[in-house]
């Protein structure tokens, strides 16, 4: 087994970790009231405003940004592995590469499904609203 497929396989696993971090980031609250800068504020004001609804723009975009980015990272992993399989495909090498890539395929599939409903009415709505003819002040 030559060094290159080993490296690609290891790097592919590393990209899986990147996807994991992005997933973690996606789940972080984006509401300003939850931000660390405002810790003191929250203590000072017991009657803090309600946190933002994650469905509200722009918070709604955070999820999509991270999902699309993760999807792209998985795509990079799959392209890397596919190209590497063309270059090195002895049985052991192929097995290692396919093993490293398969979680990415799974992740990509799940994210693709996740994206579809989000692309639906909500996103459309926002756009249409933006394009409405508007009257002046």
């Amino acid at each position: 087994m030559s060094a290159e497929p080993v490296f690609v396989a290891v790097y592919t696993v590393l990209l899986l970790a990147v996807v994991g971090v992005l997933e973690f980031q996606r789940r972080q609250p984006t509401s300003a009231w939850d931000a660390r800068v405002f810790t003191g504020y929250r203590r000072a004001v017991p009657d803090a405003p309600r946190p933002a609804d994650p469905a509200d723009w722009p918070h709604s975009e955070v999820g999509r940004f991270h999902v699309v980015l993760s999807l792209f990272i998985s795509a990079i992993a799959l392209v890397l592995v596919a190209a590497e399989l063309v270059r090195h495909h002895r049985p052991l090498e192929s097995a290692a590469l396919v093993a490293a890539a398969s979680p990415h395929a799974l992740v990509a599939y799940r994210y693709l499904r996740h994206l579809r409903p989000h692309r639906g009415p909500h996103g459309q709505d926002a756009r249409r609203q933006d394009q409405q003819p508007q009257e002046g002040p």
Partner: protein
Amino acid sequence: MGTSDATAQDTTGGRRARMIGRGWVQAAVLVTAVGFLVLGLLAVRTYQAEPPIPDRVVTSTGRTLFTGDDVREGQRAFLRNGLMEYGSIFGHGAYLGPDFTADYLHRSAESVNKQYGDDTSSSSDAHTRTVEDFRTNRYDERTGTLVWSPAQGEAFEQLTGHYADLLGRPEGKQGLRPNAITDPADIHDLTAYFGWSAWAAAAERPGKSYSYTNNWPSESLVENEPTGHTVLWSVLSLIFLLVGAGGLFAAFGRWNFLGWHGSDQRTLRFHAPGAVRLTPAQRTTGWFFFVMAALFLVQTLLGSATQHYRADLGSFFGIPLDEWLPYNLTRTWHTQLAIFWVVTSFLAIGIFLAPLISRGWEPAKQALLSRLLLGALTVVVVGSLLGEMAGMRGWLGGLWSWFGNQGWEYLDLGRVWQVLLVAGMAVWALILFRGLRRRLATESVANMPWLFFLAALALPAFYAVGLLATPNSTYTTADFWRFIVVHLWVEDFLELFTTVTVAYLFVLLGVVRERVALAVIYLDIVLYSAGGVIGTMHHLYFSGEPAEHLALGATFSALEVVPLLFLTVEAWSFLQLGARRHSPSSTPFPHRWAVMFLAAVGFWNFLGAGVFGFLINLPIVSYYEIGTGLTANHAHAAMMGVYGMLAVGFAVFALRYLIPEHRWSDRWPRLSFWSLNLGLAWMSFATLLPGGALQLYKVLDAGYADARSLGYLRGPTNTFLEWIRLPGDVVFIVGGVLPLLWMTWLGIRHRTTAARLPDAPEQELLFTEVVPADVEGHAAEADDDGVPAGQEER
């Protein structure tokens, strides 16, 4: 740091009083002043402790190898021929060609070892003698003479032949144009320059057990290894980072930093873009943004040509590209344009914002001045780029450094162009001053209009520092001043201008209260200055500076990560305020995509500047890593990710007003947004990160010189990784840059004709505040933070 002592309504001497607590201003001034004081001391130490250039280098048998003038002339030849955009010295420069310091050191040590019996095992006699030759500092300060061993002299002769072959090859194929440097005198001087830098890299400083470059590069033949300082300050800087982050974390919990006492209950009506009348100067920014997008396109195309050389040095799909556009020229243009197009956008947004800040007031001839500025800027950009080509080809004779290329990476442009660029930015600051002067006269210097103007003023001021680096400066001092521009100007003052501008945009849109924005700006100044000013030294660990630069640079630049940890939420905090769920605007928010680009800035600030930057920041990592693909990874993700996205975001913001409503479509910014972000992510994760990691491994495995050699870069694995980024680059250029160019074209083609009349009443241009009826009674007593608690709409 309470803010309760300031009230917005107070005025002193006709000026609106400071809107923020005095503590903030004092802290900002103090932190910045201390930073610059230390920086000044480090500048002095640079001149005291840089590696000396001997008057002459002779062998112990009395033969003169080269003189100090040869070394200085060699540096000029190095810069004149654009070799710093091909390879590097002390790790700084371009990454296709060799690091000439490490390359010379390795090759000459190999030669000396061979002459002594060709045995590289660490216990052998040949090895001991080689190490002795290179590490013993036989420079006599009194006579100005440096003595080399006859074997080192012999190596010098051999390497003169080697560099003659590498740099003057008739067929090229190494990244330079064919027959690039053929003059034997030039080759001799260049070899002398490389030889001098290699000497400084291995010879021990007087009284110290490490070399002038803190033992960089890693080279086993001369026992160059990381110094104790390198290891120690790596560990200490990590501890500093943890303490700094922890301290700030505790502080955030203790104080109500932003001084809010209640939530904001204004109801806004955003003015529809079609209803906003632009001033004549604002309308000229359409051309600025078009020029910006055009420069951006050229920059990315040159980037792909540059990248092509890394993937395939031999040919460009059969076209003899290297004849006219060799690697060192495309890379020069690529790095210069990266600065130019971003700055163009910054200048434009400044001109666009000034009338908004002045509530629609604009002095006469402002548009004319702006047009002249753009014209002059275009002349400087085109002139400097062509000059670089002419300079490298030797067409300018003795004027090469004036009109051609001074050659220091990022400050490549000729001196005349450099002065003109500084002057242009100064004129821009003047234009802003004209536009703002009425407003400035009525404001405390600590308030936003002044901060905006001062931040703008810092742009020409700190770019001008680059004038201190000339082709005649010694390498170490030139590098010091160069990084005042590359680090302090870009990473700190552009960052400051960015923060002020973005904050002001939100204030002008009415979604953020002025005092909140001010608090964020001051927090930003304090945090970025605390780490960033002295942190400039993190670029100078190994460029001939003494160990204190390494120690302070490592420690303070680690602190630079702290604001990135905390302030990336700032973008989102603004957005939260912008979302105003419970006080909805009756008209939609018009800047969805501009805000998306700003959010992308936050993301890349964290990933590109924070993560990828810190990855290579520790001295011990930098020692092996400097000049490898991981530096390029950080550079691209941070420069494009932060400043590139920001420049595009500014353009999208202004274009929303420049393009008439019925011509505007969200399709173009959406396509551009996703393509730029994903293309950049692809560039980073498909090629730069894995390629850089592999190259770093190679440094550890086979030494620095080997990992930076053309042989390694042309190896199958690296070539494979270089090619794999092609799809991402296509997405970036076709899907990202072209739609942007199209949008900016629409901004000129259909530029809104409705201009604001000069005598129109002053007003907030972008929104109208609607005070709800039940709050109206309290509005007068409410301070600027918003209405008292209890009035919140639930």
